[in-house]
């Protein structure tokens, strides 16, 4: 359907050129730098945990990815709400929402993986039916669903409308995940909830590393979203071209 002219037309290539701007380059470099520091400090400088040993180092990935995933989903929700409130003709908000959700799903997956690996080391199993774990899993599925809705097709406007509504409902799940621990602990008398915060002695460096981890992942998030958003813009441009071609084809045909 997409005629070749749509691929090598004059607007697309320099649009590709524009995907990377000084701003994104700077952010990218910053992200890499901080990430490097987290790796070094996380793996070598920070002390190993009394009980957990080296396993504790997973925290520097696990926690930041979790929190940044939250951030991503909140950004998605925010952008979606804005779009719903004042229907801007441009779909920039919609694309930001989409891009942010994609990265969020990515990070949530990292949380799940790092978490279950950590669990293997500390609890001896990859998975426990802990409320935090379960709710996290559902949050993950929710946003996979959100992305599926984005993939439904239809006009870009339709896509924006649908996904924005789903997103503004989905974001409400985050508090559920966050407070799941509290909720359950206060209710569920059988101590099925394992929160190891207590037995991690957070010394200064560990805390600093943890938070530089948060910063590093946040920067990475920002960097990826900016790129992704621009790529989505380009994809819409290409689809436009494809549509033009299709229309021309149908006009010529018959």
């Amino acid at each position, binding site marked *: 359907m997409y005629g070749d002219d749509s691929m090598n037309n004059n607007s697309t290539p320099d649009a590709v050129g524009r995907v990377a701007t000084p701003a994104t380059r700077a952010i990218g470099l910053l992200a890499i730098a901080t990430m490097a520091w987290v790796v070094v400090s996380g793996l070598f400088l920070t002390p190993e945990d009394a009980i957990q040993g080296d396993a504790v180092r997973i925290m520097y990935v696990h926690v930041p990815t979790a929190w940044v995933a939250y951030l991503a989903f909140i950004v998605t929700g925010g952008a979606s709400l804005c779009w719903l409130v004042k229907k801007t003709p441009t779909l920039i908000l919609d694309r930001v929402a989409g891009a942010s959700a994609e990265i969020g799903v990515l990070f949530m997956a990292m949380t799940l993986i790092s978490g279950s690996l950590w669990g293997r080391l500390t609890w001896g199993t990859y998975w426990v039916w802990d*409320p935090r774990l*379960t*709710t996290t899993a*559902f*949050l993950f*599925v*929710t946003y*996979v*669903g959100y992305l*599926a*809705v984005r993939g*439904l097709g*239809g006009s870009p*406007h*339709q896509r924006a*409308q*649908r996904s924005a*509504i*789903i997103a503004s*409902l989905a974001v*409400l*799940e985050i508090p*559920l995940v966050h407070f799941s621990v509290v*909720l359950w602990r*206060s*209710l*569920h*008398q*059988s101590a099925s909830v394992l929160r190891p915060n207590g037995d991690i002695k957070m010394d200064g460096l560990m805390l600093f590393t943890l938070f530089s981890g948060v910063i590093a992942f946040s920067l990475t998030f920002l960097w990826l979203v900016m790129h992704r958003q621009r790529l989505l813009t380009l994809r819409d441009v290409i689809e436009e071209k494809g549509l033009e071609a299709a229309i021309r084809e149908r006009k010529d045909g018959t």
Partner: protein
Amino acid sequence: MSIGTTWRVARVVATKDLRIEMRSRVVANQVLPFAGLVLIMFAFALDDDILLERVAGGLVWLATLFSLFIVVQRSFGIETADGALDSIRVAGVDPAGIFLGKALALVVQLLILEIVLIGGAVVLYRVRVEPASLVLLVTCLLLATLGLAFVGALFGGFAAGIRGRETLLPLLLLPAIAPVLIGATKATEAAFGISGMVTSEGWPWVGLLAVFAAVFGVGGLSAFGPLIEE
């Protein structure tokens, strides 16, 4: 549109749905046998009263959940079978009313099912429900059902609007109703006094259910229009 209109439309739609169900008995004949089977099967699978008691709560709500899918699918199947949904959309009917009507019909059908299930659990699994915890049980039933119905109506309608909907519905529905399932299970277990839970422990969960129902009630009323009309 005015609340009056919304409510009138809701009544008309709900009546229509329930009448169709009365005529065709599709849901009843599909769902109730299911439900019964779940209970009996488990009575089989673990013939041990203590165990049975422990799973009772979870089973009741799991069965309800399955039924939700069937009920929701049927509920919007009748709209899409002969293109009635298009006609409704063209008729410019207040979508909030449609949403409410659909949800109401779902509530009625689900409640009947749940009562059967709880009854079954009481008989087969010898769970005891003290009068004290009866209040808890009933509130839990009502709120959980409301929540499920709202979610079902919202996403069911959304999915019905687009091709390849069947593939989408579970993906949207499952994570959304998981909290209800958990909350309702816990509350029910508390009401059943399972594994030493006392009634008071159930109420916080009922609170969760209430919040959920409220969120999706409001969300549905406002979002249903945009969702199906696009």
